[in-house]
């Protein structure tokens, strides 16, 4: 398999920089789990049906990756992604903490609808 690409969309870049500045350990854990999720997709598994402890199924085909496995005492965090199987692109929508989840999901859903056309 292979051939999937990552594309930052929406507010991903600005949220990424905020996490890099204030929550480095959480960001590292989220990225390590993103790497694991991508490894399974590239191994041929369907991104919508993968079940993992750190992966949460959200509405509109969005998946939320959390920080589990990154060590103790980490703030609950989410990296929202939207897999586009047809074009083999994993859209990176947003990064946020648990408290911001509701607001982030509203934003991510709007982006996912836009990406679907």
């Amino acid at each position, binding site marked *: 398999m292979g051939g999937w690409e*990552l594309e930052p969309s929406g507010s991903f870049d600005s949220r990424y920089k905020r996490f890099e500045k204030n929550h480095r350990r959480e*960001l*590292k854990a989220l990225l*390590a789990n993103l790497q694991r999720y991508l490894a*399974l997709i590239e*191994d041929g598994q369907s991104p919508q049906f993968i079940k993992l402890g750190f992966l949460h199924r959200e509405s509109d085909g969005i998946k939320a990756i959390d920080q589990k496995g990154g060590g103790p005492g980490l703030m609950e965090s989410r990296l929202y992604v939207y897999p586009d199987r047809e074009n083999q692109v994993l859209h990176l929508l947003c990064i946020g903490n648990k408290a911001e989840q509701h607001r982030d999901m509203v934003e991510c859903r709007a982006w996912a609808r836009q990406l679907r056309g």
Partner: protein
Amino acid sequence: MPKRFERVSELVNALSGKKFAQDFDEHSRRTQLSRTLFVWRNRKDLTQTEVAGRVGCKQAKISKLEHAEIQDMRMKDVLDYLKALGLSMSMQIHEQNFTATDAIKYHALEINRHLEILAAIAKDEDENDEISGGIADFFGEYFQNSIHFFTQNLVKLPQPLRALAAAGLQSGEPTVQVSAVPGLEEEEIASNKLVEA
């Protein structure tokens, strides 16, 4: 068109400061083995709890192993994990300056060694059509695949180098003389009769 990335580490390099990018890159390299274990468990459609049951440990230990950096992993834990998945492991030790060409030479010699083993089995099982026929089919399949891999990457070379490599193909002396293989004429290779056989 928005920027796209093939790897997470590539994305991190583009978006992060130098220090964070270096840290993540180091972590990424050090977790290559644990990530490979994780992919294999998912291929086998097993949960961490199921693997823990087979190993005889707690699920938390399996989780820890799948996130561990190489320097924190115990060989016995890795072997127990692989055994639980019905897998084994082979190791390769080489110089630190081991290059891609060294790797290709190493694997080419290994492939040659295994082809010799298959050829010997085919000779011993000459009257068993299933085995000898299967081996003959595999030889043809391997020949086609290796040509495909080679040409697929040859065209990726910049044009002047491609021409240079093609010239080398025509004039270079192969390490193994195909014409020296008993019962196999050079023209048979050239006309692809090997594949058809």
